[in-house]
C-alpha cells in the first residue's frame, strides 16, 4: 500500500483528538477501524493530510444496556464485539442478526460500529439497523456534545452532518416501547460482499399489537433508506399476512436502487419485498423461526 504522504497523530483523550481535528481542518481524518478509510487511501481516493488515530483513547470501547433499556455503543466497539455479545439476541435482535453479516470475519475484528455509521456508505449494514431502531449518534466537538438522530446524521452518500472537528463518541439505541423483535436479511454474492439488498426490521409489541416498527433498507438507494410508510403499515394491529405483504410492497416502492452488476433495479426491489415479508412473517407469533437465515 502506497498512500500519499500524511501526518499521523495518536491522541490519548477525546479532547486531544478534537484539538487535532480542529487544527487539521478539513484535511484531517479520524482513523477508527480503518476498514473503509485505509482502502480509500490505498487507492488514493482519499488523501488526508493528517490521520487522527483514535485507537489509543481509553474508554471508548464500551457497550452497555442502561437500566432503562437504552443501549450505548462506544466509538471503539468492533463489529466482532457485537457479533460475540450473545446477550444481544434478546435485547437487540436486529443488531444481533446483522452482526455476522457485516463484511467478513477479518474486517469485523477491526471495523467499528460507529465508524460504519460515520462512513455513511449507502451499502453499510449498521445504518439500516439503526434506522429501523430509531437510533442516534452522539457527537463531541470543541463546543461540547450533541445527539443526532441517525436519519438526520447521514446527509448523503458518504457524508454526514459531523463538523470536521467533531468526533462521534457513541451510538445510542433507545429503549423499547414494548417487547422487541427484529431481524436482518442481506443478499450478498459472497461473504464480505456489500449488500445487493439488505433489510433491517425492528418491531416492538404490546401483546400481539405492534406498537412501533422500523424498517431500514441497505444498498437500494443513494443513502440508507428509512421505509417509514412500510413500517407504519404494520403498526397498531397484530402482524397479519395482509399487513406484512403491504409492508413489503411499500418498502419495495420506496427503494430506489440502480441497475448494476449486482442485479437490475427491479430485482433489487423484489428482494426488498421478499426480505421484508420473510422477516415479518418470521416474527408472527405463531411461528418460531430463526430470523438469522443467511441468504447467499
Amino acid at each position, binding site marked *: 500500500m502506497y498512500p500519499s504522504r500524511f501526518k499521523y497523530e495518536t491522541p490519548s483523550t477525546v479532547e486531544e483528538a478534537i484539538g487535532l481535528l480542529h487544527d487539521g481542518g478539513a484535511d484531517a481524518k479520524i482513523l477508527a477501524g480503518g476498514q473503509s478509510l485505509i482502502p480509500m487511501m490505498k487507492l488514493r481516493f482519499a488523501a488526508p493530510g493528517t490521520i487522527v488515530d483514535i485507537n489509543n483513547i481509553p474508554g471508548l470501547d464500551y457497550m452497555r444496556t442502561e437500566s432503562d433499556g437504552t443501549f450505548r455503543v462506544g466509538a471503539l466497539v468492533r463489529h466482532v464485539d457485537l457479533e460475540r455479545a450473545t446477550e444481544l439476541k434478546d435485547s437487540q435482535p436486529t443488531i444481533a442478526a446483522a452482526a455476522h453479516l457485516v463484511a467478513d470475519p477479518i474486517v469485523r475484528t477491526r471495523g467499528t460500529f460507529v465508524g460504519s455509521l460515520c462512513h455513511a456508505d449507502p451499502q453499510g449494514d449498521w445504518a439500516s439497523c439503526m434506522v429501523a431502531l430509531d437510533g442516534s449518534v452522539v457527537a463531541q466537538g470543541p463546543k461540547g456534545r450533541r445527539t443526532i438522530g441517525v436519519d438526520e446524521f447521514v446527509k448523503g452518500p458518504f457524508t454526514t452532518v459531523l463538523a470536521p472537528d467533531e468526533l462521534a463518541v457513541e451510538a445510542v439505541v433507545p429503549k423499547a416501547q414494548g417487547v422487541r423483535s427484529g431481524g436482518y436479511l442481506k443478499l450478498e454474492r459472497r461473504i464480505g460482499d456489500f449488500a445487493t439488498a439488505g433489510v433491517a426490521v425492528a418491531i416492538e409489541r404490546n401483546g400481539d399489537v405492534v406498537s412501533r416498527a422500523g424498517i431500514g433498507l441497505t444498498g437500494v438507494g443513494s443513502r440508507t433508506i428509512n421505509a417509514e410508510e412500510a413500517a407504519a403499515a404494520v403498526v397498531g394491529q397484530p402482524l397479519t399476512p395482509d399487513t406484512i405483504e403491504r409492508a413489503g410492497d411499500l418498502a419495495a416502492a420506496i427503494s430506489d436502487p440502480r*441497475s448494476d452488476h*449486482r442485479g437490475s433495479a427491479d430485482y433489487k426491489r423484489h428482494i426488498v419485498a421478499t426480505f421484508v415479508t420473510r422477516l415479518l412473517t418470521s416474527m408472527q407469533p405463531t411461528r418460531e423461526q430463526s430470523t438469522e437465515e443467511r441468504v447467499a
Partner: protein
Amino acid sequence: MTLDEVKIGGLGASRRRVEDNRFIRGKGNYVDDVVLPGMLHMEIVRSPLAHARIKKIDISGAYKIPGVRLVMTGEMMAARNLGWMPTLSYDTQAILATDKVRFQGQEVACVIADDPYIARDGCEAIVIEYEPLQPVVNPMQAVAPDAPLIRDDKVNQTDNIVFDWEVGDVIGTDQAFAEADVVSEIDMHYPRSHPSPIEACGSIADYDRSTSKLTVYMTTQAPHIIRAAVSLVAELPEHMIRIISPDLGGGFGNKVPVYPGYVMSILASILLEQPVKWIEDKSGNLISTGFGRDVYLKGQMALRNDGKILGVRMHTDSDHGAFFADAQPSKFKIGLMHSAFACYDIPNAHLTARGYYTNKAPGGVAYRCSFRVTEAMFFQERMVQAAADDLGMDQAEFRRKNFVRDDDFPHRTPFGFLTDSGQYEKCLDVGLEAIGYDDFLKQKEEAAARGRLLGIGISTMTEPLGAGNSREYDILGIKMFDSAELRVHMTGKAILRTGAKTQGQGHETTWAQIVAHELGIPAEDVVVEEGDTDTAPFGMGTYASRSTPVAGAAVSMVSRKIRAKSRKIAAHLLEVSEEDIDWELGRFYVRSAPDRGVTIQECAMAAYSNVPDGMEPGLENNAYYDPPNLTWPFACYIATVEVDPLTGVWDVLRVVAVDDCGVRINPMIVEGQIMGGLTEAYAMANMQFITFDADGNCVGGNYMDYLLPTAWETPGFELHEVVTPCPHHPIGAKGIGECATVGGPAAFVNAVIDALKGTGVRNIDMPLLPDRVYEAVTQHHDVSGAPPVKTD
C-alpha cells in the same frame, strides 16, 4: 531387504510438500522479496479510458518531485524501437501506448524513482490529455457497421477480426444433420475470468554494464521462452541474459505472456545502469494481464431418436481484447477448442471459430484452461445435457450410450485427435454410485411436490494434456518438448533440474518422487531446482498441465540413463558381466546370487572413485523428452443443488468428483489440485467473472467486484479415483493440473438448469448470479449471451 517404495517417497507416496517448509515459515523468496543494492522502483500510469487518442502527455510535473529518476512514455520507447513488441501469437502489442489507448488499464507511461511512494507520486503528477473514441466491448460491437477500427496501427488490418479458423468435416457433418431425427441447439457465453494469482506480476531488471549481463528476476512460468523473447525484443545476446523465476505465488497461465512492465523495467535498468524493480498491484494485475475465456459458444447436435449422436456443429466467437497476445500452439488459432467431444463416439463434427479485437485487456488463454479446453469441455457437457433433455433421455444414460468404449482405443476423436486410454463408463458409474443417483432423483421428485427445486448436474470430460508432440505443437516455432538434468553426487544424493517451473504444483516434491521410483534414491535425498535459465536445462515451462506429461517424463528418462550407467558400474564392482545382473529398487544384484549386490549409492561413490577402465567418471546426465502423444485424463463431476426461486440463490448440496489421471505420483498433491480446481469451477459457475460496462470500464478490477469464493461459501468435495495408466508415458501418468477447473463448471450449471427443468429455461450464462437465475425463472427464458452490465 527390498526397499519399500512408498517409504522412500516414491510413486504413490503422499509425501508432504518439501517447498511448504519454507512457505509456512514465511521464508519463501518471491520477486518482491529480492532486494538488490541501489535498486530503484518503477510504477505504471494506466489508461482510465478503454479507447482514446492520446493528445498530449506532460511529464514535467513528475520530474519536479525529488527522487524521480526517469519517466518513460510511448514516444520515448518508440524512439528506441520499443513502442511495440511481438506477441506469442504472431501479433504485436504496445509496450507503452504511442498513438492511442486500446483498453482501460493499458500502460501509458512509467516512473522510476528512489522508492515506490515517490514513484506513485510521480505517476499522479503526469498529465495526459485524451480524446475519447467509441469503445468496442464485445464481438457483436466489433463487427457492427459503425465499429471503429481498433488496430489502425496494423498495415493490412481493415476490420476488428483477428482470425477465422475452421476444423472438421463440413460435408460429413451436413449429412449427419440431414439424417438427424432431432437437432438440439445451445447458445452461451463463457464469461471472462481472471486467474488472479495471489502474487501479481513483477520483475527486477539488473543490467550490469561491466559484464554486459542482464539479470532479470521475474514472475514467469516459462523462463526460457522469456529469455528468447527478451533477446529478440531487446536485441541482447541470449547468453548475456539470465532470467530467474524465484518462488511464484501462483500462475494459472497468468504468468506466461511477456508483459510491458517487464520490458520497461529492463529498458529502465539499461538506461539507468541500476536495478529497477516493478511490482504490479492487484488491480493492475486484474485489469491488464492475461485472462481466460470470454467466448460466445454456439452449438448444434444431430441426434437419432434412440439417443445416438450423429454429428456436432460448433461455432465460437472469441474476444481477445486489443492484442492477440495469449499463447497457444501456433497451428491452432482457437487453442485446443477442437478437443471437444473426445470422449464421445461421434462420427462427424465441424468447428468454425472467429476471433475479435475489442477494447479490453488482451489474453484469453489463461486460468487452468489448457489452451481453451475449458471452453471446449463446458461446451460439450452443456450441449450434451441440452441434447439429453430434448430427447427426454436420462442424462447419465445418454452419456453412457455415446461414450467411447474401453476396447475402442486408440480412438480418433471427431476432430482428429488420437485418444489412447480411458474407462469412461466406469468413472461415470463410480460417480453415480457415490452421489446415490437414483435416490436423489426420488428425493428431487418429493421436494418438487413440496415446491422445492433440487437439481443434479453431471459433467464428464477427457482433455488433451501435455503438449507436444513437437510435430504439431510449437509456440512461435519453438517446439514443445521438455528436459531434465540429473546429477548424482558421490554420496548418492542428487540434484535435479528441469525446464519446467513450479508455481504451486509441488515439483520440488514430486520430481524427487519420480527419481526415487526410478533409482531407489530416497526422495528426500534429491533436491529439485527450476527457474534459473543459467542453470536449468531448456524447457517450455509449466502451463497447460504439461509438466508431469513432459518434464516429468524427462525426469524418468534421465533417471533411466543414470541407471544404465550405474548398471555398468555395478557389473564392474560385482565383477560379473552386465547381462548377469538384475535391478530391484535401489540395488543391482547378481542374478544367480541375489545376496551379492550393490546399492545405487555404492554405484554413485564408485562413479567418482572407481570407474571401469575407459568409462567417463561422474554420474550425471540429461534427457530431452518429446512426448509421442498428449495424455488423456478423464473425469466425472456430479453436483447437486437447491435453488431458491424467490431470490435466485442456489446452494450446493454435494459435489462428487471421480478423476482418472493415470498413475498418481503423490496422491495428496493430486487431490489438492482437484480441490483447487473444483473451487475455481464453483467460483466461475457462481460468482467470479470480469465484465465491462458500456464504456469499456472494467468491472472486476478489485476484490470487491471480482469475487473469489472463500472457505465460507466453497462447498465440500468428495473425491474418488479410477486409474487407467497412460500407455506412452514412462510412469503411466497423465496431466491433472486443470481437469477440475475444466470439467467442473458444467456440473454446477447443469445442476441448476436441471433444477429449473420444467420452467422452459435451457441456459443461464455463468456466473449464475442470483439475479440471473431469478430473471430466468420468473420470465421463463434463457439468460444467454448476456450483454455488458449497465452501471449508471
